[in-house]
């Protein structure tokens, strides 16, 4: 039977680097998938993933096993991505402008807010997926992170809060707003297509 992540961490801490190699192989696909969705330049993805694993190795003695190793690792990946973004801060990014975030997040629960405008019939079409992909890449990084962790990594609100080091209500708000922005962006894109057609 394959050793669990905790056992591999224990072996690594005893000085067995190969055990960490197994951990890398086990999590590298998920880390690359996450970084690819957070970093806009595909050329940077491998660098960031590599950096994140090296940071994780250095921080391994602080891993207490309270959370799953994957969740703990994602937090390091997230921080590595943020650091990389700061390094590239001078590069102008075409991010969607977002209103200042409200601290009071009560009453917002995912997509379920009654105030949310309901989707237009246009959002039902299958070809909407391509448009969504394009809009996703233009979303601010926090929103992309929440969407990726929820829809791709299937992390719960609680786990996402742990990874991104933010309150759970903020995560719900980010998810809600990310969807609202995607809908708006899609609408804008469709209007522009109709205009230019």
């Amino acid at each position: 039977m394959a050793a669990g992540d905790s056992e591999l961490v224990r072996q690594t801490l005893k000085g067995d680097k190969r055990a960490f190699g197994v951990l890398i192989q086990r999590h590298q696909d998920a880390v690359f998938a996450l970084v690819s969705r957070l970093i806009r330049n595909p050329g940077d993805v491998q660098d960031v993933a590599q950096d994140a694993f090296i940071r994780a190795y250095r921080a391994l003695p602080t891993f207490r096993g309270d959370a799953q190793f994957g969740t703990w690792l994602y937090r390091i990946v997230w921080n590595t991505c943020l650091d990389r973004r700061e390094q590239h801060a001078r590069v102008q990014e075409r991010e969607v402008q977002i209103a200042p975030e409200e601290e009071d997040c009560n009453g917002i629960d995912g997509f379920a807010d009654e105030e949310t405008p309901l989707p237009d019939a246009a959002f039902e079409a299958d070809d909407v997926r391509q448009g969504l992909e394009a809009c996703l890449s233009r979303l601010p990084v926090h929103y992309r992170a929440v969407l990726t962790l929820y829809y791709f990594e299937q992390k719960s609100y609680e786990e996402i809060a742990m990874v991104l080091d933010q309150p759970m209500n903020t995560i719900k708000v980010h998810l809600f707003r990310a969807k609202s922005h995607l809908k708006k962006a899609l609408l804008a894109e469709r209007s522009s297509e109709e205009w230019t057609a």
Partner: protein
Amino acid sequence: MTCTDFRLLAERRAAGFPLKARQEKALERHLAECSTCAAVARFEHNLAAAVREFPAVTPPADFADMVLAQLPDPVAVPEPSLREYWWNLTLGVLAAGAASWALWQKAPSWIPWLTGEKERTQIADILFNAYMSMGEVSLPTMSVVFLALIGLTAWGASALVAGER
């Protein structure tokens, strides 16, 4: 269930979280009746698919080796010092002793098994019998000695585990 509940279920289903058969059935029934929620569910489905199918870089075959080659020397786990063990042990015993003494003196009403003769549980009886058999030694003293023994055992065990590492 309201439309809000069904939309949350649709969101969870689109994200890949399994629903109970009962929830799945109710959701399907509702989506067949409510076109607005059906549109939300469709959007959720498309969004989840777009996130999953977002083009991602795949790691090269030798990625793990590349990382391993860059790792520093094995990470050192800081071993707790003997002094630290004794300090923690002393604090633990003092705290446990004080807590036992306070409990015995006050026997607060929210601990039913310490409040009356009839309500004493087996644990309380054991402590009481031990106290009777020890004659002159007071219960607080006995509790401290008892807890000190537990503490010493725990310390010995942790020292053994640390030795293994």
